[in-house]
């Protein structure tokens, strides 16, 4: 296969040894699912790190939205403390919505999504890698920053751990459920608003269990029931959503002109 070709004008690199070519050729399909998922996870992570805007914007949005509430409702510590769980959770939910359509939109526009569908590898495995990368780049920063904003909202000190744990589980489900909406609206040019319209009703259970977990602990109650339900939703969405996402991507790709 590597017969001598007529050299192009500039030819610095000489040809690699025969052994490389044979070795590389044989690897077409032994990449295991985990390896495949990891590859797309690393790829998206590398992309996110390179364009800081992608993970910084949801974070800044989260901070600004949370700080709007005391301005709107008044700085009274008592009132702030009661609404703190709800405010933190709703702002985190909206911040996640903001960054959702970037999961597939760029890949759709430059043709990479097509190549994923046509590559012969299972699309749902690649999707898991991509959604996990989205969770790490836009979900985790929110979780890490939430205690700070909890302080701002006069959240009782007992509730910080629950806040972090509930947001951790919640943002995971939000990433997967949101990714379904992102995949469904990938071929629509201003799909952003429609994406939220489709996804928000589906995120209500996560919001309810999440914020009630934090407010339960804030008022001294036990929140293990809420957190276990959150974990259940997280596992349910992490296992079922990729199938729907893969189906939606196949449709979205076929819809483009």
């Amino acid at each position, binding site marked *: 296969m590597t017969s001598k070709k007529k050299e192009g004008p*500039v030819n*610095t690199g000489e040809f690699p040894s025969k052994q*490389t070519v044979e070795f*590389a050729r044989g690897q077409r399909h032994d990449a295991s699912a985990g390896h495949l998922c990891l590859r797309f996870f690393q*790829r998206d992570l590398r992309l996110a790190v390179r*364009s800081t805007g992608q993970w910084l914007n949801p974070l800044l949005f989260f901070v600004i939205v949370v700080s709007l509430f005391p301005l709107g409702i008044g700085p009274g510590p008592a009132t702030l403390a009661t609404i703190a769980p709800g405010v933190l959770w709703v702002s985190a939910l909206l911040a996640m919505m903001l960054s959702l359509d970037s999961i597939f939109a760029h890949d759709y526009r430059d043709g990479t999504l097509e*190549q994923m569908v046509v590559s*012969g590898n299972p699309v749902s495995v690649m999707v898991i890698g991509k959604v996990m990368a989205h969770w790490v780049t836009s979900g985790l920063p929110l979780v890490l920053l939430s205690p700070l904003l909890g302080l701002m909202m006069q959240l009782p000190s007992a509730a910080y751990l629950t806040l972090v744990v509930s947001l951790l589980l919640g943002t995971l489900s939000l990433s997967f459920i949101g990714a379904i909406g992102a995949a469904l609206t990938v071929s629509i040019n201003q799909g952003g608003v429609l994406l939220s319209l489709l996804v928000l009703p589906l995120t209500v259970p996560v919001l309810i269990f999440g914020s009630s977990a934090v407010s339960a602990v804030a008022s001294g109650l036990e929140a293990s029931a809420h957190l276990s339900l959150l974990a259940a939703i997280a596992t349910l969405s992490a296992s079922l959503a990729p199938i729907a996402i893969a189906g939606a991507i196949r449709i979205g*790709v*076929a819809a483009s002109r």
Partner: protein
Amino acid sequence: MSSSATLMLEAQGIQIWRGEHLIIDDVSVSVPASSIVQIQGSNGSGKTTLLRALVGLAEIDEGQLFWQGEPMTRVRDEFYASLLYLGHKPGITAGLTPYENLMALCPEIVANQTVEKETRKWVLAVLTQLGIGDRIDLPSVALSAGQQRRVALARLTLQQATLWVLDEPLTSLDAEGQRWVKQQIQQHVATGGSVVFTTHQPIEFDDETVITLSLAQPS
């Protein structure tokens, strides 16, 4: 390699409507092993849509697709495993360098650490032939559309696929580039593979039999 008699890809009676008008009217294509099939047609004749339909990237209203004799719905994964599709969109991510892009797109060259250095030299050699060797580590956003197409075309050598489906492979390429692509196609066909591509005006291959399907402008 399957013997030359067996058919690689076959499409029978493909009909595609877009809204009210019929863009692909009852077209049948059969791609035997080690052959070149050229879909020739002016702009808007629906050749890109037909090509995308052949690889399942466009909806088909009527008609059937077969891969090596089996109905496509049953062998879709094997079909995709042996397919290399280059569409209008190059499939190059702007944020990644050409090297990273090619590593993502061609599973074959995802070598483990021991062979990393060797594979990189091989990718560099192919990119140099295409005249973009020096851009291997620049983020692709710095590359022009033509250069991004060349990075995508590098997959013709780097990736192992029995069937190539290329959408206007020779556009926006200089004479040097076009000759390189023709060479790859001829070599691919010589080893038993097949190539289907769309083009504005017919392309000659010196000693190859080229099956030409010309799409008339829809009525």
